């Protein structure tokens, strides 16, 4: 699957080359960048706003902003972090305008409207594993959707994008120590929510 986790070293080098071409107005470079980041960026936005249609619109707006600001982007900086920061700011502005309360509170139904067909299945060993895995997955997704936005964000950046803590701190515009404690608290709250569904045991 294209670009589901943070880029490898060769991926990063290719991105830098594309960024240089993009500054000169090369459409192919833009196309390659959008394709390379399509899954990661969409996933991040979806975790933040929890509505697929809004996430798609924000996806387009992010790339429009990238085109607008690419000239003032210092090519030696990390393009990943910059892109995600732009996306984050747009998402937060959007949420503040449309649903200011959702920045902290859980959203009732939207998460379940994603159909199973929308997801890329993971490799699992046996049909039983498959069924258990599906159940675990649903539980995990539901629990995560109910966390406050700040926690969802740091969890998705760490586990789904596999960003380093320093990068996460850069994207969320907080010091590294705050990012670490946020990650810890988000994990604790997630575990608390999961174990609440299976009282009396740890979540397996």
């Amino acid at each position: 699957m294209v670009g589901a986790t943070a880029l490898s070293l060769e991926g990063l080098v290719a991105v830098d080359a594309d960024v240089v071409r993009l500054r000169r107005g090369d459409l192919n470079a833009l196309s390659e960048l959008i394709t390379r980041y399509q899954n990661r960026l969409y996933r991040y936005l979806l975790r933040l706003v929890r509505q697929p249609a809004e996430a798609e619109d924000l996806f387009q707006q992010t790339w429009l902003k990238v085109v607008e600001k690419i000239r003032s982007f210092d090519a030696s900086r990390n393009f990943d972090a910059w892109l995600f920061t732009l996306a984050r700011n747009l998402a937060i502005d959007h949420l503040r305008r449309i649903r200011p309360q959702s920045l902290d509170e859980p959203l009732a139904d939207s998460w379940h409207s994603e159909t199973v067909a929308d997801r890329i299945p993971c490799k699992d060993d046996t049909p039983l594993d498959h069924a258990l895995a599906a159940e675990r997955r649903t539980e995990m997704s539901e629990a995560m959707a109910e966390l406050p936005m700040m926690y969802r964000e740091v969890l998705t950046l760490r586990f789904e994008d596999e960003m380093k803590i320093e990068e996460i701190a850069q994207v969320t515009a907080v010091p590294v120590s705050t990012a670490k404690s946020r990650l810890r608290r988000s994990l604790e709250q997630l575990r608390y929510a999961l174990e609440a569904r299976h009282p009396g045991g740890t979540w397996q």
Partner: protein
Amino acid sequence: MSEHDKIRELLALAAADALTSAEERQVAEHVRSCIACSNELEAWRPIASELRRLPTPQPSPWLVQATLARAGAKLTEQAERDWNRHVMIVVVAFAWLLTIASWPVFHFVTGRFGSWLEPQFSHTQFGQTLLGRTWFSNTWISFTAFTALGWLAGGVAAVMLTIRQRGERRLA
């Protein structure tokens, strides 16, 4: 806070691979001797691994194309504007050079043919000495006349075109 408590706080982050190497060593050492922390660490691992294996949601199939169409249009528009700005600078510089270069050309031409006009436009008639210098020779008249004519014609053309352009835009 005792060391045990400190390590307990780091366990979740340990499962998330978010610790520095020094902290990891600390945790590894402590976990070897402390059963409670070891169990706790093992309790965190399935959560971390499941989070890592969350399926990636897929956007609509045409999202990339639609984004490329809109962002690409903006990119080409910006590239156009930058290119136009460069062209403008070059053309304006060229226009100035043309104006300045026309002066020696005029000097050259009037120098050769000015003698034909001498009887009518002698220096004494136009160029009364001012501080001992003749200011108005036929060459300078030609310079100024040509440059002024150029600016006047350009100004008139600009005004006419702007009026026409505005009229057209209003109808559209």
